[in-house]
């Protein structure tokens, strides 16, 4: 991720923020960015292994968009970090599992294309709604990153929801398999709307997004597509949580060992 140009960001008078506020903002940014980082990593696993050339390219393109967004967030987080040596790279690659704030949904494996696309679909809907609010943030940097990302994520949403329609209203087998993925992954949706301490502090500052207000529209948005795709909207009321607090599923360690391998093996390596 090394780069000779710096992202043009400045907004909050960082010097005027208390240490507590800085810590909350830092954790808030990581909470947003880690979702995209881990989902991007999951999609990257499909590079060269997609079910068809077009979907392979699509997955890696979406991954690239997400990593691009992550870089902007992490560059900003590095400025806020109390650690003067923090860079986008150390934040991305040198944290331990418990320090990642992503939701459990994005770490779920690429079981088959049905699972991959349902995971994407369930996240894209949330991501889009979230960014549309974040672009109104009092924090100019976060608002700018959101404005830029919305354009990309709208396209991700279009891609994933189109595939839900195709698979759901496709063959008997595609219908069955995508339905299974929807039913299975449903239990990870509620966590998207959970709020950490940092989230609440940032909402109070007018910086963070009040996610509880997005919940209703989120379920409406995905249910409409599922119904159109002749799929059943699950009624499960049991939901998993923990990722936002750093308590991840078993998958997370494997993702990180893959993702961090180069930086851990060759510290400070650069391309």
């Amino acid at each position, binding site marked *: 991720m090394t780069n000779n140009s710096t992202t*043009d960001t*400045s907004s909050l008078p960082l010097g005027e923020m208390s240490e507590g506020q800085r810590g909350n903002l830092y954790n808030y940014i990581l909470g947003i960015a880690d979702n995209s980082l881990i989902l991007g990593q999951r999609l990257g696993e499909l590079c060269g292994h997609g079910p068809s050339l077009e979907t392979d390219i699509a997955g890696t393109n979406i991954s690239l968009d*997400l990593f691009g967004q992550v870089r902007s967030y992490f560059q900003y987080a590095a400025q806020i970090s109390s650690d003067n040596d923090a860079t986008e790279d150390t934040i991305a690659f040198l944290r331990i599992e418990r320090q990642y704030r992503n939701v459990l949904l994005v770490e779920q494996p690429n079981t088959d294309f049905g699972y991959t696309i349902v995971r994407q679909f369930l996240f894209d809907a949330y991501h889009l709604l979230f960014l549309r609010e974040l672009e109104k943030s009092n924090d100019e940097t976060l608002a700018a990153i959101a404005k830029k990302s919305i354009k*990309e994520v709208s396209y991700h949403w279009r891609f994933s929801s*189109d595939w839900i329609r195709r698979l759901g209203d496709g063959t008997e087998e595609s219908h069955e398999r995508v339905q299974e993925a929807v039913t299975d992954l449903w239990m990870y949706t509620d966590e998207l709307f959970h709020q950490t301490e940092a989230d609440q502090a940032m909402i109070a500052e007018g910086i963070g997004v009040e996610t509880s207000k997005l919940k209703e529209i989120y379920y409406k948005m995905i249910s409409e597509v599922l119904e159109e795709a002749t799929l059943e909207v699950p009624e499960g009321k049991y939901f998993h949580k923990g990722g936002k607090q750093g308590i991840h599923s078993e998958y997370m360690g494997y993702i990180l060992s893959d993702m961090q391998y180069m930086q851990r093996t060759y510290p400070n390596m650069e391309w």
Partner: protein
Amino acid sequence: MHNVILNVQTQHIEPHLVSILESVSDPEIPVLSIMDMGVVREAIEVDGVIQVKITPTYSGCPAMDVIGDDIVSAFAKANKKAKIKLVLSPAWTTDWITDRGRKALEEYGIAAPLSPEADKEALLGNKKIVKCTNCGSTETHLVSQFGSTACKALFKCDICQEPFDYFKCLK
């Protein structure tokens, strides 16, 4: 390093810097200069150093690093030092591609962006408006929403059977 501006609302390029910037082309689309692409938002000379602000087409566009390096070396050839900054706001839009840029794209074999719905319409078979860059027919269909780079979608012509890239419309 961080005392920089977030918003560059209007493009501002000092006239004496234009020709050098026009000599730098997009590494993914060599026929297109970065000026025609609309990614240069500001170029000013301050105390002998050229300050250039560029904006990415897509957040993850890997060409941005190369573009930054190419600008620095283009100015170095003219014995000038250039510094590059990346700006995110306002976000790049395909409307910033110049008419000359659109023409260059088409001649190169990449259909220029039309409307945000053009590729969706093609996918759903509603309206066919994307023209084949080989034979000019609008009897084309969308093969993939994501193409060879983040900014392109893949189309195929039903008349001449040629596949071609369509520059996605970003507004």
